Every structure is written in C-alpha cells, then in structure tokens.
C-alpha cells in the first residue's frame, strides 16, 4: 500500500488530526418509565436522580455492532469530508463482534464499499477503546502507513446483559461512532500526547465469564442465578462489580490526568475542556470534585443514551462541538477507563 503523502512544507510534518465525528444510535428506546413498569418497585424519577440517565437505545435482536457501525460511517460519509474510496485503514473497536471470526472490520470494509487496498482490523477494548483507537490511528498516520484512518466504535452490550439484571440494564445503552483521522501538514501536535495503562488484575470485575474458549457455553452456563440486589444473571451474561470499578476509577483516573498534564507541560487551567468516559453521573461528579475541574469545562452527556462503552467519548465530543462547547484550536483532554482494567488519556485539538 502506497501512503499518499502530499508535499510536506519546510518545518511542517504530517500530523494526525480528527477531521469529523458522527454517531449512530439504534431506534429502540428504553426509558426509565419502561424500567419502572417492568421492575415494579422502581420509580422513574429516582432512576434519573441516581444515574443521570433518562433513556438508553437498545439494538433489535438481529441488529449487531456492525449494523450500528455502518449507520455511523454512512452518516460520516454523508457529511462530504471524506468518501469511502479515500479510507486506507479501518479500525473497529467492539466487545460484541458479529462473529468470533472473521474480524468484523473485514465485513465492514465490504459493506461500506471501502477499497480492497484498505487495511482493516478489530480490537477488543471497552471504555478505553476510543482513546486507544486514536493512539493507533496517530501511529499509523505519522509513521506513513496510512493517510485516512476510519475509526469505528460500536457496542451492543444489551445482548450480553440478562433481562433481569436491572442494574446493568439501567446503566448501559447500545450505540456507535465513526471518526475520521487524517494526515495533515502541521507544526503542532493535534492528537497526543498519550498516557496508556493496563492492570489485568481487574479482569474479573467486569467480564462475560462464559462463551469464549476458556469457558465454553453449555446448558450449565445458561443457568440464571440471583445475585446482589436481586439482579439475575448467568455465566453467559455480563457481570460488573460496580463498587470495585468505582474504587479502580478513583485510584487510576486522577493520577492518569496528572501524568498527562506533566507529559504535555500544561496546568489544569490550560486545558479548555474535559471529556471523560461517560460511565455514570455519580462517578463523574466525584472525579470532577476530586480533580477540581469547573463544571462548565466538564462534559456530562449520558441523559439520552446511557453508557455506550467505547462510544461515549466520541458521542459526547460530537455533541460538545455542535453545541459550541468545544471550539476550533482548543485543547481538550479525553480520558477512557474501565473493563480490563484498561485506561487511556490524551489531548486533542480540533480543526480551525
């Protein structure tokens, strides 16, 4: 594959930049009223007060992560910034792929009409996935391997969640985002620096225990059992230890933020806007207080879609740019954290 490097001027070098973001949510809505009706002893207003979420979008049974990703990518191409024929690398982030194999990215290459000379891979990350995708895209572009990277994040966690696990059903929503990262000539760093981290000791705190090769799905793994807080689930379902994840977040996110500031030589005041993974409002409010970030510089965007895992940050970014909360040339900090445990933080600057 030949990288199409346009004439690079003196002093300037090829830099990766986020060109455009488009998100896509399934049509099906699950409102607090629906949850309250289903679970009887719940109250819609109380659910909102506790979570900051009013409704989530849920994929249909035959609607998979690739379908949501196609929705987001078609919206991105409709914008006119980029044609499918321009894309020379596809990165697809999901933890609910269509198949074990082939990679969903290969399916997506064909469905989106991307050139056959396009590289395409899946990567399995959750809440840190979007920031990891930016790190990969930047590396591909600035090494001269690719010029137009299409990063797609898509998740259908609802298919992992037991219908009687009301805690998980309240928090998570399905969704997707498409992000074009392209090579531009610039003297400035437009994506980065990055702080990346991993602590595999957290593997059991957020997991789908059965279904892979370690623990094959059997009749036994399908047996539903009552767990904490009258939530029901089987080993085939998603399990999340909420309190322990909260502990991990309180210990990890503030230090990742400090490391990133140190790496880019900035103070908190010099960051114009903060977009953290939209896990839940309670967690974000605590992190904001701990880091002393002013409310007007801190993104909260989960009311209409819940926690969409790897898509929360791009969905929030698209919204914040459209609302004028992020303006061209501003320095924005992104922080993703969760399942793995895995975390990633970076700075981004949008096109002027």
């Amino acid at each position, binding site marked *: 594959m030949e990288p199409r490097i346009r004439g690079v001027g003196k002093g300037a070098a090829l830099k990766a930049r986020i060109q455009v973001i488009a998100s896509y949510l399934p049509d099906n809505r699950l409102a607090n009223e629906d949850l309250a009706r289903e679970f009887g002893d719940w109250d819609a207003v109380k659910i909102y007060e*506790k979570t900051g979420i009013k409704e989530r979008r849920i994929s249909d049974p035959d609607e998979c992560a690739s379908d949501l990703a196609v929705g987001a990518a078609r919206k991105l191409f409709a914008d006119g910034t980029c044609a499918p024929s321009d894309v020379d690398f596809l990165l697809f982030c999901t933890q609910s792929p269509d198949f074990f194999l082939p990679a969903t990215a290969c399916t997506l290459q064909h469905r989106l009409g991307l050139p056959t000379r396009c590289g395409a891979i899946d990567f399995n990350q959750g809440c840190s996935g979007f920031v990891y995708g930016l790190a990969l895209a930047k590396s591909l572009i600035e090494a001269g391997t690719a010029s137009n990277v299409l990063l797609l994040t898509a998740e259908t966690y609802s298919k992992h969640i037991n219908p009687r696990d009301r*805690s998980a059903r309240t928090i998570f929503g399905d969704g997707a985002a498409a992000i074009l990262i392209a090579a531009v000539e610039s003297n400035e760093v437009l994506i980065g620096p990055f702080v990346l981290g991993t602590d595999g000791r957290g593997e059991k705190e957020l997991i789908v225990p059965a279904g892979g090769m370690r623990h094959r799905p059997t009749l036994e793994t399908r047996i539903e059992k009552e767990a*904490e*807080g009258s939530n029901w689930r089987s080993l085939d379902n998603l399990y999340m*230890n*909420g*309190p*322990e994840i*909260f*502990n991990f977040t*309180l*210990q990890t996110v*503030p*230090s990742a933020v400090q490391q990133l500031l140190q790496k880019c030589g900035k103070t908190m005041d010099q960051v114009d806007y903060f977009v953290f993974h939209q896990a839940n409002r*309670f*967690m974000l409010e*605590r992190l904001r*207080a*701990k880091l002393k970030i002013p409310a007007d510089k801190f993104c909260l965007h989960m009311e209409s879609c819940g926690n969409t895992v790897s898509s929360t940050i791009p969905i929030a970014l698209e919204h914040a740019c459209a609302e004028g909360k992020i303006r061209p040339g501003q320095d924005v900090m992104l922080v993703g954290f969760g399942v793995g445990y895995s975390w990633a933080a970076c700075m981004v600057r949008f096109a002027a």
Partner: protein
Amino acid sequence: MGHNKEQPTDYMSTKAFVAGLAGILQVPPETVTADYKLDSGNWDSVAVLATIALIDEQYNITVPAKDLVSCGSVKQLLDLIMARLAAMLQSND
C-alpha cells in the same frame, strides 16, 4: 496514589464522615451511633457507592468493595477505615 499525611484523620473527620453517612442512609445524624445496623434495608448498592465516594473525600483512601459491602454496623465500617488508614500510614513511613 498515596494517602496524604496532612489529611485530618482525627475526631473531626470521623464526625464529618458520620454526618455524611447519615445523609447517605437518609436518617438523622444523631441516630448513626457505633452500633447502628447496616442491613439490606439501607445498605444497598447505591449507598455503598456513595460511601466509597465519602471515604475518598474524607480520608483520601479506598477500601476493598467486598469488605465494605459486608459491614454490618457503623463500628465495623469505621474499624475498616481506621485499619486501612493505619496500613497506608505505615507504608508511607
């Protein structure tokens, strides 16, 4: 992220912690004595999350979630925090 030695860990912070806990349990502060029972009626997942935030705010530490969930009384909760603080202080020395 280590424990900040400047953080007050005395009677005042215990008092502020108990006041915060009363808010979480939605009961008057004077009712939250050492032998106040934490049970399935008031010690739900949301209360546990709020208490994790309160402990972080007041003491700048985290305690293992499974230990926190299994606390049966306010005394057990305070003992858990004090043991964790002592361990943190020792590891800082």
